[in-house]
């Protein structure tokens, strides 16, 4: 079984979000990058399959050389090899076309993406990649079990869950639940040492055009002061919610 995990390089969740170049670009100054959390859940699930099914796990990212540290981290977590498609990830469509061009040659059985990347929040690369690869896609995937030739899956839906059955090959959009927070693998010294020896291949991008562009960014307006209500005056809170905020 060959697994591809698509990794998006995103600002750490505590990062302050600022923009430069007259609000046309994200300000990367002082920002630490991490593996997109949804992708990390997916990677952990892949490593379990690697151990149970003797699967091989490839991680791939579309990005510039600055993305290599997180690919090394994926290798330290346990991925067998890493691929960096050497291009700026202009939009989801562009990223999906690059990943597809690479994946088509490798015949993966299972392709894992994250539900969405926490920076651009496109929620689109997985579905588009599946379409290119002519494989079914499952969004918001919270369970994946192999049972003989079948794959049993679960998708989170609004107010519940859906249980599905399918076969490989398949593309999923991973999120928490696929594995739990406590199951995430923290690389140990041995993993980190081994990661240095594992292959990290740099691939030339194909000719492809983005389907959209970002004109500018904007931050939410500064928040006014909170109105504090005394614990002895809950009626006032209710009054404010009813008559000032029109919220209840």
């Amino acid at each position, binding site marked *: 079984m060959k697994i591809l995990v698509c990794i998006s390089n995103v600002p750490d969740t*505590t990062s302050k979000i600022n923009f430069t170049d007259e609000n046309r670009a994200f300000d990367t100054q002082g920002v630490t990058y991490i593996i997109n959390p949804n992708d990390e859940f997916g990677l952990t699930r892949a490593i379990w399959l690697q151990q149970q099914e003797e699967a091989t796990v490839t991680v791939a990212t579309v990005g510039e050389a600055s993305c290599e540290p997180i690919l090394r981290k994926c290798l330290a977590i346990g991925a067998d090899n890493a691929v960096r498609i050497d291009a700026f990830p202009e939009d989801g469509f562009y990223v999906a076309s690059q990943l597809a061009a690479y994946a088509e040659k490798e015949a993966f059985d299972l392709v894992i993406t994250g539900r969405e990347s926490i920076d651009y929040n496109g929620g689109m690369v997985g579905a*588009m990649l599946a379409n290119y690869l002519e494989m079914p896609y499952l969004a918001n995937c919270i369970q994946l079990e192999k049972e003989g030739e079948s794959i049993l899956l679960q998708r989170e839906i609004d107010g519940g869950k859906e249980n599905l059955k399918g076969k490989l090959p398949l593309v999923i959009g991973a999120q928490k639940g696929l594995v739990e927070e406590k199951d995430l693998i923290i690389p140990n010294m041995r993993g980190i040492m081994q990661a240095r020896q594992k292959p990290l291949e740099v691939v030339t991008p194909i000719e492809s055009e983005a389907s959209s562009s970002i004109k500018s960014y904007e931050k*939410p307006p500064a928040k006014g002061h909170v109105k504090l209500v005394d614990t002895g005056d809950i*009626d006032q809170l*209710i009054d404010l*919610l009813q008559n000032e905020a029109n919220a209840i």
Partner: protein
Amino acid sequence: MSVLVYIETQNQEIKKSSLEVASYGRAIADAKSTSLIAVCFGLEDSSQLAAYGVDKVFVIPTAGDIHFNAERYSSTLVAIAKAEAVDLLIVSGSANGRFIGPLIAIKFEASYFSNVIGLPTAYDPVEVKRSCFTNKAFNHSISKKDKVVISLSSNSFGLHEKAAEAAPVEGTYSPSSFSLEVVTVEQSSAKVSIADADIVVSGGRGLKGPENWHLIEELANVLGAATACSKPVSDMGWRPHSEHVGQTGKPVASNLYIAIGVSGAIQHLAGINSSKVKVVINSDPEAPFFKAADYGVVGDAFEVVPELTSKLKALKEA
């Protein structure tokens, strides 16, 4: 060039988020002086859509598919969009809307924008404002294609009625070469889901343990609200993962968000920022949530919440 909306239903009822999508679609169709087409699957009575300005409704018989089927639904929508010369297609921000949106976009050779929070600010080419960095910022995106698929962020446009005469037409269901088979659906016992809720009541670690969650549930019940929680609360198994909100959980865009015993970590706030009115109840006046909230009570949840609940109950019964 007409506008098309995908209408979602549950138990033969049109979902509120889809009526919002219809309202939004109508406003766009008016701006472009064109007609609004709706597509729904397996719905017996689509007459409600006329009140939201839909000019034509395709009702698709779904053969044996009683559950949502992303492959066949997206293929069907694209086939209709092509036949009807559609150039703008809109889906909701629901789980199914976000699932199907990018599938439609790629089959339709359109550009795709999720988390869109208002009407396009331009049409040639289409330009939209969408939230990004999990609600910590917005971006203005421009389409490079002449066809566009938009996923509208829930509660960002609202419901707007406008009479039209929508005659239902029977459409054809597209087959697909592959798809996943839905075996069962488990609907949680919660009465209101976070995605559909006008009001969300959320509890954090300050509630001390799952045995105290009746405080959250009772308040939610009086308000007809959905219940939610912070990440550690779901990680510890006090509450199901489906209630985890924030940057790595679900986004919340309700009209009212009440946070109880939640400190207001940046990752939590990111996910709930687009809720309109925020209330915090926390015993620590230094809790960061107070900086992000509209209304706050510095106090013990175990005292404040029961009082709030009983006063709201009395008000309702009055």
